[in-house]
C-alpha cells in the first residue's frame, strides 16, 4: 500500500474524532460524570440547613452561593482532565500527531464543558428555587452560567495542563486557577443580583460574553502549549 488520497489531513475529522472519543470516555464513567453535579446539589442544600432557612436571607445570598458552588464543582472535575490521557500515552500521541493541536484541545474542552458546565447551568434555576432566588433573576443566572462556565473550564484547563506532569497537582491546581476565576464570579453574581433587585443585568452579561469569546479563541493555544511542555518533561 502507498499513501492514498484518502489520508489528506482534514481538520473537521480531527475535531469530530476527538469530541466523539472524549464524550465516549465521559459517558463510560457515569460516576465521574455525576460527581461534580452531586457535589453542586449537596453544597447548595447545606446552606438553608447551615446558615438560615429564612426566605429573605436565602434570597439575598442565592446568586453568590450558586455561583461559588458551580465554581467549586467545575474545579472538582479538572484534575482528571488530562491525567489519564497522560498515563496511557494518548496525550503524547495527540501532541505528536495532531496538526494543529489547537483543534483537539478545543474539542476536549467542549466535551468537558458539555458534561460539567452545561448540566450545572441547567440545574442552577431549580436549586435557585430552593434558595428562594427571585424569579426574574433565574434567566440572568442561567445566561451568566452559560457564558461563564466555558471560561471557568478553559482557564481550569490551562491549570490542568500545566500540572499534568506532577504527581499531586490537586492543591496547586486550585491555587493556580481560583484567582483567575474571580472576575467571572464577580460578573456572574452581579448579573443575577441586579436582576433580582429589578435592574437591568445586560452590562455584566455582555462582559461575560466578551470574556467567553476571548477565552474560547485564545485559551486553547495556551492549553496546547502547556500540554506540549507536559509531554516533553514526561
Amino acid at each position, binding site marked *: 500500500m502507498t499513501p492514498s488520497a484518502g489520508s489528506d489531513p482534514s481538520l473537521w475529522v480531527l475535531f469530530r474524532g476527538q469530541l466523539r472519543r472524549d464524550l465516549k470516555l465521559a459517558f463510560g464513567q457515569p460516576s465521574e460524570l455525576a460527581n461534580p453535579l452531586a457535589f453542586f446539589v449537596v453544597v447548595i442544600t447545606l446552606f438553608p440547613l447551615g446558615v438560615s432557612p429564612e426566605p429573605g436571607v436565602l434570597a439575598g445570598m442565592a446568586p453568590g452561593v450558586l455561583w461559588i458552588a458551580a465554581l467549586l464543582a467545575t474545579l472538582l472535575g479538572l484534575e482528571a482532565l488530562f491525567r489519564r490521557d497522560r498515563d496511557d500515552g494518548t496525550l503524547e500521541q495527540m501532541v*505528536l500527531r495532531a*496538526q494543529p493541536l489547537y483543534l483537539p484541545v478545543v474539542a476536549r474542552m467542549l466535551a468537558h464543558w458539555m458534561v460539567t458546565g452545561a448540566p450545572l447551568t441547567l440545574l442552577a434555576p431549580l436549586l435557585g428555587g430552593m434558595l428562594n432566588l427571585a424569579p426574574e433573576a433565574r434567566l440572568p443566572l442561567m445566561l451568566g452560567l452559560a457564558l461563564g462556565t466555558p471560561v471557568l473550564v478553559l482557564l481550569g484547563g490551562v491549570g490542568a495542563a500545566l500540572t499534568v506532569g506532577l504527581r499531586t497537582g490537586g492543591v496547586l491546581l486550585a491555587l493556580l486557577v481560583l484567582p483567575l476565576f474571580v472576575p467571572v464570579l464577580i460578573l456572574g453574581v452581579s448579573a443575577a443580583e441586579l436582576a433580582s433587585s429589578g435592574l437591568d443585568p445586560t452590562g455584566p452579561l455582555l462582559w461575560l460574553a466578551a470574556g467567553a469569546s476571548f477565552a474560547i479563541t485564545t485559551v486553547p493555544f495556551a492549553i496546547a502549549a502547556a500540554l506540549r511542555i507536559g509531554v516533553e518533561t514526561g
Partner: protein
Amino acid sequence: MSHAVLDICGLRCERDDRELFADFDLRIGAAEAVQLRGPNGAGKTTLLRCIAGMHPEYEGSIQLLGAPVAGERLLFVGHRPGISGLLTAADNLRWHLDLAGWHGAGDVVTAALTRVGLTGYDDVPCQQLSAGQQRRVALARLALPTAQVPLWLLDEPFTALDDAGLNLVSGLMADRLAGGGAILFTTHQPAPELPGLSTRWIGAAA
C-alpha cells in the same frame, strides 16, 4: 538528490546531568531497519523521544527526509501504549485515524484488528483485555493506513507478546520495509529476521 529517511548528526543529549550520548550519528535509508541495543538506562528511549520531538534538550541535528522532523511523518509507539483502557479497541483505533485526519472508510479498523488477531474483541473495553492483547491493540496502529509514513519509531514493540504476536509484528515491519519505509526500534530480545536490518549499540557496550 536523495536524502536518508532519518539523518542524525552529532547528537548530544543529557538527562539529569548525565551525558547519555555524544557525537552520535545515525543514517537510516528507505527500506532499512535499525535495531537499537544497549543496557538499561543507556538512553534508547530518550533517543527515540528526541527524534519524535518530545525531548527538546539536545544538541546536533535530526532530519527526516532532509527536513526538520514533523510529527505527522512518523509513527511512534512508546512504552505507554497510546490506548485508552476505557474505550474499545475499535474506538481507540478510530481515534488514531481521526487524529491523523483520515477520512476514508471505517472498515480499515476491523481489518487492522483482524491483522493482529483480535477479531471479535472490537467491542470490549481495552482494560478487560490481557497485557499481550492490549499490546496487540497498540500495535494494530501499525496496520492502519495512517501508518504509511516514512519513519516508524518503536520502543520495545515485542514486550508482552507471544511467539505468534512476535511473528505478526515482524510481518508488519517487513511489509513497511517492503513499502519503502524506515524503522528504528529497540528490543532486548533477539531481533526478528528482517530484510535490511542492522544493529546499533549505544551506551556502555558501544
